[in-house]
């Protein structure tokens, strides 16, 4: 009998609503922690695995030596490499494609690379405007590497003590 009476009171005096409003009211005056993405960004781990890049040595020579280990290790078969002897006798790729739709961003390719050529950068904000754009070729990968070399290098440096 008493329980029925209390429920009656709570229903008619909008008790649940008031409780909800009370919670909102109490948060209204506390410190906010919303990040205003894309104006604000959270920090990323130096091990973040985002978009791929091919790096160069400081003298401008591409690092990749076409050993095809990344291609062999890739679990998603996302990498396609063709290689040839370059005029100066060195072993180089003539084609290096990464299919970003196939890639699972596992980072195995980076692990396998003996010369730190293929790396996963911390770039994760990218989009495609057509199907063909989902495969980045060698020139594209080298361009990404050139553009973000400093951040790539810093990230590797930060991570180095733990390797």
């Amino acid at each position: 009998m008493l329980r029925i009476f209390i429920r009656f009171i709570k229903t008619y005096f909008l008790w649940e609503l008031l409780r909800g409003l009370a919670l909102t009211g109490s948060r209204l005056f506390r410190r906010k922690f919303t990040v205003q993405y894309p104006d604000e960004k959270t920090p990323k781990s130096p091990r973040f695995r985002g978009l791929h890049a091919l790096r160069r040595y400081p003298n401008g020579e591409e690092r990749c030596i076409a050993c095809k280990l990344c291609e062999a290790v890739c679990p998603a078969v996302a990498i396609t490499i063709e290689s040839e002897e370059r005029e100066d006798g060195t072993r180089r790729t003539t084609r290096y494609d990464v299919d970003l739709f196939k890639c699972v961003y596992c980072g195995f390719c980076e692990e396998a690379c003996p010369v730190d050529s293929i790396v996963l950068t911390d770039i994760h904000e990218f989009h495609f405007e057509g199907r063909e754009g989902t495969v980045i070729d060698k020139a594209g990968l080298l361009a990404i590497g050139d553009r973000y070399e400093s951040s790539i290098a810093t990230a590797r440096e930060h991570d180095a003590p733990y390797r």
Partner: protein
Amino acid sequence: MVMIIIDGQEIEAEAGSMIIQAADKADIYIPRFCYHEKLSIAANCRMCLVEVEKAPKPLPACATPIADGMVIHTVSEQAVEAQQGTMEFLLINHPLDCPICDQGGECPLQDQALGYGGDVSRFSEGKRVVDDPDIGPLIETEMTRCIHCTRCVRFGQEVAGIMELGAIGRGEDMKIATVIGRTVDSEVSGNAIDLCPVGALTSKPYRFTARAWELASHDAISPHDCLGSNLNIQTAHDTVKRVLPRTNEHVNECWLSDRDRFSYEGVNSSDRLLQPLVRVGDRFEEVAWEVALQRAATALSDIGKAEGPGAIGALASPTATLEEFFLLQQLMRGLGSDNVDHRLRQRDFRDDSFTALFPGTELPVEQIQDAARVLLVGCHLRKELPLVALRVRELCRMGGQVAALNPMDYEQNFPLTEALVVAPSALPAALARIAIARVDQVEVPEELRQWAELIPDSEEFARTAKMLSDVEGEVVVVLGQIAAQHREASALRAIASWLAQHTGIRLAFLPEANGAAAWIAGCVPHRQANGDGVPEPGLNVSQMLSARLSAYLLFGLEPTMDLAATGNLVSALSDASFVLSFSAFRSAVPAQADVVFPLALFTESAGTYVNCDGRAQSVEAAMDPRGMARAGWKILRVLGNYLALPGFDYITADDVRSRVNLSLPEVVCRLEEGCPLPGAASKSVPWSAESQRFERVVDVPIYDVDPIVRRASSLQRTRDHSLAAVHMNKEQLLALNVKAGDSVRVIADTDEVRLTITPDDRVLDGCVYIPMGSAATAPLGGADYIELKVVR
């Protein structure tokens, strides 16, 4: 047989064999680098150290003969410690550049370092650096990787017969190198690539293009010679990346000639024809298959109706498959014409009706090394059949003897007991002299005597005859390509057959490429498939060319270079009203062709090859044909349908094959008894400096034999290729007052070419050597006599 115990396992092994051989037989693994079952034992890598009970220290398994009751441990602490120690020493000077090494992924050193090497090197001193010599267009060197196993050296010395690579220096300074500035020119040099356990010797054409793990392997048979070497075609991304041998002890053992190994570059050539063509005015237009087939069928049946089927003739390249030969002759015979032939460079067909089922070797290839005596007649064996030459070399090593009767003093890679060199025209005469001396008391037919009397008798003939008599074991007389293409080839065959009939001598008439299959499939004018006769023989190659037929079918050949009768050919094709060319290469299509079918090559087509000892080997296609090219047997089958011929309803290559009986009897290649010996040719015109007329020694160099090898770019850069010149000996150079490098006009009948002079002391007085098979000498065809005009 003795009993030994390896790793607790009791094994019965042959007395005198080495521990490693006994272990291999019992499938017990012992690591190794320098040991190879086909090479002598060097025991210089020390990787195979094992513990033998009662021995004070570990012993090399490859060089320790077993003894009864020996107890061996391959994985005991002492053995493993020794192996690990050896590995550490081997890696001291090794650059560890696996990521850029072509051997990476299939490298015994890499594999064994994983098993026996440490994870961190204790060696911090500087590593040895060695220069990489350029040893030719086929083998790439990276000598810092060399571990001095000397397999490559032993291969050259023992198997190939020319020691081109050698070890110079000792200890840390030891280097593998050629004689300064020399290249490796052996025709079997590529095997050193397979033998080298590290990446010190790698394939130049394959360099950096693929990794072992991404290659798909397919079985194939080499079409370039009559041995039918077993190939392992390795492909990636729809191209042939490299070719490796497939071990077959009956055929190629574990070796491969460079021609078989590197001819795939021709398959990948940019000259491949990818689309059917038809002539429109004076140029070719690419069309769909249906259009080309329809056009060809209409033209052929029109000509057949208007001028009779005898006005159509077909020539096939001897590199085609059995199925292609069969369908080509079925097509021709279905049209009503027997004019079909594959003997493109043969010029003498007089003994056709007496020939055996197919030319071949009466002694199986695998028994050649066990023969006692071999006489090579008109045969540059080393360049013709490089792997058979290795077996003949083995024969010499076992105490056998070899003699050669050749039109020039070819360098062989085995010792010749007798090297007889006579002018080309005197080959039958010299063979007749030997035959008469060998057979002795038997009555000699008059014709044979006439032949013999063309040249004066000499001591050498008697010596050679003596060499061939009174021995235990097989005696073989081999007639090579020079004999088969000789103007008097039927005389040579008849004399050899006479010799064989009166002695126990076995014969070998070497067919060209897959020629044996062509004979069996009936791709000859006087026989149908399986050797069945024809009522009236058709025209052979030379008759077809001189008869000026109205339609020619050219199957897989490059007319200007694959035929002996080249001059005839151009006019015959120009006069013909219809020329149908099946060609894999754009530049091999004759300008006179009306319809061109793009042909798949041996890597892209299922087919059967019959080698010289009658071994039929069938393979599937290794890959899809390039572009719109199609396998020859499919094209012929569909062309048969377009022509509405009966019996062209095959579904697979197997169906075609089943029409041919391939359970072949033991090879007998000698001419049937009763074959008349052709009368002796008149004496050749003697040479005089004034007439400047020379007898020509002619052969087909190893890398000019067919359209595929002619387009294999690396082979074309080897020393064996630069032969298209006028070779003559130094005295004649003086007599003619010319010097090396001078340009001369070479005139044969109506055609002439300009070539340079090369001194070559292998050539006799009165002769010049001008090979055929290349563009530079194409207009001369197989001409036997030429006139030289010095250009001043």
